[in-house]
């Protein structure tokens, strides 16, 4: 798949001397959902702002669908819709008028039917004549999305789209994002809700302290770095780990009632089956067992820690 956004060697140093981005290289594939993960202050918003033309880069080049964002900014920006992190809206305007404004700003002819479709998709049609100041936070968030979609972008940036949004609305947004992707829109979202990336993304990039530390297919990432846990509830509490089990990576709970076995999916360690056999031979009986996959969140935390 060809890349629709190509970021190469981009750095950003603010006037204060703060280095927000360090030599970023990143390619976004056409039609994918890309999740950019990172802790607060990692540089996610700075990177997006550079691609969208809000912040000047200190060095490097960015092309959007082959258009350089500086020399050919009109073509580049026309393709992009941006939903920023903060709810910045014109409080005294009506919902439909701000969408029409955004469309005009991006040089598209007025199209009330299309605006109506967006408003209906976002469940805002009933509120089309309401002043934005009267809307709830979740509705304002949807207005922001509506504005970004009003000029039919081919690339959509969602900066922390579901921050402070309730569960139901979050599910709606995910559904909307999938529909957009099906229609061929490339989606880049930043989030620190790992759950969101896990649920939605095709690929995940992790950024920390201004550096991209990893870009990977989500499934591959989970497989590579995923760890599994096996938890055994013991019938009779143990005071210490029995001898002969040192090769297993076992944790005994403080009250001695459970054992936790952590293993990497592809590691060359003795498997679960041999552990259970060995436990049986040692006369350790258990009432129950439970396994779980580590989530992207744990992967992410361990990556960021490793770098720190």
């Amino acid at each position, binding site marked *: 798949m060809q890349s629709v956004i190509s970021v190469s060697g981009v750095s950003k140093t603010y006037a204060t001397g703060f280095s927000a981005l360090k030599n970023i290289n990143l390619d976004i594939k056409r039609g994918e959902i890309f999740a950019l993960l990172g802790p607060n202050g990692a540089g996610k918003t700075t990177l997006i702002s550079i691609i*969208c033309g*809000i912040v*000047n880069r200190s060095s490097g080049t960015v092309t959007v669908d082959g258009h350089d964002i500086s020399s050919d900014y009109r073509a580049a920006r026309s393709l992009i819709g941006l939903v*920023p992190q903060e709810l910045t*809206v014109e409080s005294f305007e009506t919902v439909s008028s701000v969408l029409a*404004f*955004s469309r*005009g700003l*991006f040089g598209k002819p007025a199209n009330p039917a299309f605006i109506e479709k967006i408003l209906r998709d976002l469940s805002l049609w009933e509120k089309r004549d309401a002043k934005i100041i009267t809307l709830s936070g979740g509705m304002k968030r949807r207005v922001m999305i509506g504005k970004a979609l009003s000029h039919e972008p081919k690339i959509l940036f969602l900066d922390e789209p579901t921050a402070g949004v309730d569960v139901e609305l979050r599910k709606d947004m995910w559904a909307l994002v999938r529909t957009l992707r099906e229609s061929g829109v490339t989606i880049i979202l930043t989030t620190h809700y790992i759950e969101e990336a896990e649920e939605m993304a095709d690929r995940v990039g992790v950024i920390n302290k201004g550096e991209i530390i990893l870009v990977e297919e989500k499934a591959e990432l989970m497989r590579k770095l995923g760890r599994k846990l096996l938890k055994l509830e013991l019938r009779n509490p143990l005071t210490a780990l029995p001898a002969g089990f040192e090769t297993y990576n076992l944790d005994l709970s403080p009250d001695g009632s459970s054992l936790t076995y952590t293993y990497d999916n592809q590691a060359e360690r003795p498997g679960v089956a041999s552990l259970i056999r060995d436990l049986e031979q040692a006369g350790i009986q258990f009432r129950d067992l439970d396994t779980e996959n580590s989530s992207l969140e744990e992967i992410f935390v361990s990556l960021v820690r490793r770098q720190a």
Partner: protein
Amino acid sequence: MNYRAVWAIYKVEMARTLRTIMQSVISPVISTSLYFVVFGAAIGSRITEVNGVSYGAFIVPGLIMLTLLTQSISNASFGIYFPKFVGTIFEILSAPISYLEVVIAYVGAAATKSIGIGLIILATASMFVELDIQHPFWMLAFLVLTAVTFSLFGFIIGIWAGSFEQLQLVPLLVVTPLTFLGGSFYSIDMLPPEWRTISLFNPVVYLVSGFRWAFFNGEPDVPVEISLAITLGFLALCIGIVGWIFKTGYRLRT
């Protein structure tokens, strides 16, 4: 040229004017009418003619200039400062629109509004005194030039300002004194020679003088060509500063 974007911004700015019509149109008209009643009718009736023009009529161009300057600056500075303040500026910055187009839209809207107010005040004044405009073309030319120039100036203040206080600072501390001391209510010929010389450093003197000449012909405080040159010079200066702001991204793009 992204005409649709220019039109979209212009329309929103004009809609804001109409939405706040009390504050943005009626209040300057009322305050100017009050000046007119107090200075023109009450006090003016005891003042003899100035350069062959009744005092009531004499102050009309000055009053229009006064309003034109303050309105152009406040409209344009607020127009660009407000999106910066609430954060909606991100959309302008991320849109496929050039700096020139941004300026045309914001400055055009601010200038349109202050020209409108200027004409309303002119109409109001003509109900009180008889006005026979000698050079209608030059009257309009000075009106439009001044509105555009000071809207540009306001735009610069709006971009520079980091707080509402700073937004008010320049109009309050610089522009208001300059306009009051710029011969709106008097001819600088009435001043003692040293004050007359000092007044010549006040750019507003040239604007008012040129504008007044367009109304009454007669002998202006300064030659009309110089008035025009100073106005165009200030316009060029403002265009230069705006150009520099956009080239460097000053206070807009970090």
